[in-house]
């Protein structure tokens, strides 16, 4: 205590052992694009929560101002029904982000379970489970998604509408979560399986087994924490790919149903309004810009997390 207080830098240099978390956090903070991306995402989420609630032009209400160009009344213009594009875009961003994160969570659960079991079991079970993944890889995912969503809709919609009459939109979203998650877990399973395969023969796992730990305990206490870094990174990169997939489905008319709209629906509407005589550029530029920037931020964040959490990553 009586020692002279050294400079802050010197303190950090003298402490030889930072926890892995602290080291990762320091590496992440040094990555400027990733920090900016994280801040931008936080800002976007805030706007997506606030704008539709505060907007003076309710998103669903039409007005007489059809195709008004961006101006003081409507900052981002209006659409075919005179609805405020700004409000609609952020309501759409909210839905897209929601679908992206829940869909990614679904794919996470499937992918991690599948990969962990395959990698841990090894041998013939592993071979069969990974062949299954190979087969699904070679199947165009759009076929699978369409079949899955319509099948779920057919079987569950009646059930859900009996539970609550106004659940149409919610039901659609649930099916999207499941459908998108169900086609996006393949890469996650492959990555996790590879990690587990190399972890399961490591000394600490053998030690735990010799102490009498069961499979469940080894998997969840010892292996899962060790793959969590990879899982977080890949999860961050799955969210944008699911958002992209959902917007593609919405573009096909299979995603979020009107009057609700995701960013993909809005872009599809804007693309439908293109003609050589008049161009309503704001209908495509604003939703497209928000979608692209959100995806960009998520990817940069994912890259930053990868660099921060990978111990072999650059200094």
């Amino acid at each position, binding site marked *: 205590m009586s020692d002279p207080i050294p400079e802050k830098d010197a303190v950090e240099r003298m402490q030889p052992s930072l926890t892995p978390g602290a080291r990762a956090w320091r590496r992440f903070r040094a990555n400027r694009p990733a920090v900016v991306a994280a801040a931008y995402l936080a800002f976007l989420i805030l706007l997506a929560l606030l704008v539709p609630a505060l907007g003076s032009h309710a998103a669903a209400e039409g007005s007489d101002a059809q195709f008004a160009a961006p101006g003081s009344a409507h900052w981002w213009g209006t659409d075919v029904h005179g609805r405020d594009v700004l409000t609609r875009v952020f309501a759409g961003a909210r839905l897209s982000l929601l679908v992206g994160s829940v869909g990614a969570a679904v794919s996470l659960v499937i992918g991690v379970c599948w990969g962990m079991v395959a990698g841990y079991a090894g041998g013939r079970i592993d071979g069969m489970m990974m062949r299954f993944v190979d*087969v699904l890889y*070679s*199947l165009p995912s759009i076929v699978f998604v*369409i*079949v899955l969503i319509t099948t779920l809709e057919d*079987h569950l919609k009646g059930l859900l509408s009996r539970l609550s009459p106004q659940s149409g939109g919610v039901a659609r979203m649930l099916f999207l979560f499941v459908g998108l998650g169900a086609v996006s877990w393949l890469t996650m399973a492959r990555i996790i399986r590879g990690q587990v395969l190399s972890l399961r023969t490591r000394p600490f796992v053998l030690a735990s087994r010799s102490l009498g730990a069961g499979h469940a305990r080894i998997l969840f206490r010892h292996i899962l924490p060790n793959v969590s870094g990879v899982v977080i990174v890949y999860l961050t990169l799955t969210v944008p790919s699911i958002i992209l997939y959902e917007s*593609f489905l919405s573009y096909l008319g299979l995603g979020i149903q009107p009057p609700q709209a995701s960013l993909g629906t809005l*872009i599809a509407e804007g693309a439908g309004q293109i003609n050589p005589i008049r161009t309503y*550029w704001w209908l495509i530029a604003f939703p497209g810009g928000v979608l692209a920037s959100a995806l960009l931020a998520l*990817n940069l964040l994912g890259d930053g997390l990868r660099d921060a959490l990978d111990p072999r990553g650059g200094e």
Partner: protein
Amino acid sequence: MRLIRRLLTLIPLTWVIVTLSFFLVRVAPGGPFDKERRPASPQVEAALKHKYHLDESLGAQYLRFLGLKWERDDTGAWHRAEGGLIAGDFGLSLKYRNHSVADIILQGLPVSLVLGWLAFGFAIGTGIPLGVFGAVRARGWAGGLSALAAISMVCVPGFVVGPVLVLIVGLKLGWFPVGLWGSPAHAVLPMVTLGLYFSGRVARLAREGMVQALQSDFIRTARAKGVDEFGVVFRHAFRLAIMPVVSYSGPMLADLLTGSFVVENIFQIPGIGVFLVNASLSRDYPMVVGLVMLYAVLLLGLNLVVDLTYGLLDPRVRHE
């Protein structure tokens, strides 16, 4: 020898994929005749179903599809039902009646192949230089900028790129036609729209590969021998650096060559990309199965080619 074994494993794998898609589309609710202009009377629908053998059990339909169904003809003699996969026949489309699946695919495939190869060339031609440049200048702002450009390309979906190109390059500047298919000028905007995403992916892979290659020991040796920077990058590191791009080329080409719904829809191009989505939606069973098989064969075949290319590029793989 290894090649022959690999080729032989493709057959059961393709069979599994085709079988899976066969049953997958048929268990989905709804049928191919639901969305006719007006609902068919029960008799007409039954007749339609009978004509296309949809009134048979799933197992019988499957055998017929494979071409392994035996049935009695009028004289009571057993013979194999005509057509089927083993005879190279995918059946008739249920949506575009009077057209066989093979006809429809053969009509659209050349267009999709041309567009796909063009987009592949665009992706490789722009992606690799961008990625290599980013890796060589990894420390400076120019490298950062090229990395940002690559990641941005991955993030702007085709259905945004397409309309924006149409609006600006097509309609405002009037440089290229904004639709249909015919002259080389017609191919420019679709090629860019289709290829831009893949260009970004290729750039990211090439950059990562080059950064890693430049850190390897043989590069240090080359530098120590006094090889100039250009030689280091292009004569020594390049072969190793594009390995990730080579392995990505298989799935990329499979995606590109089977057409794209978005691009064909925006630019009104008569390819086969629109059929996969439309056939899945309208439950055109034989069409879906035919297209899935095309995609699977392309993907598996191209992955095989990629593996062979690996041996050519990397001596270490050859020796194994």
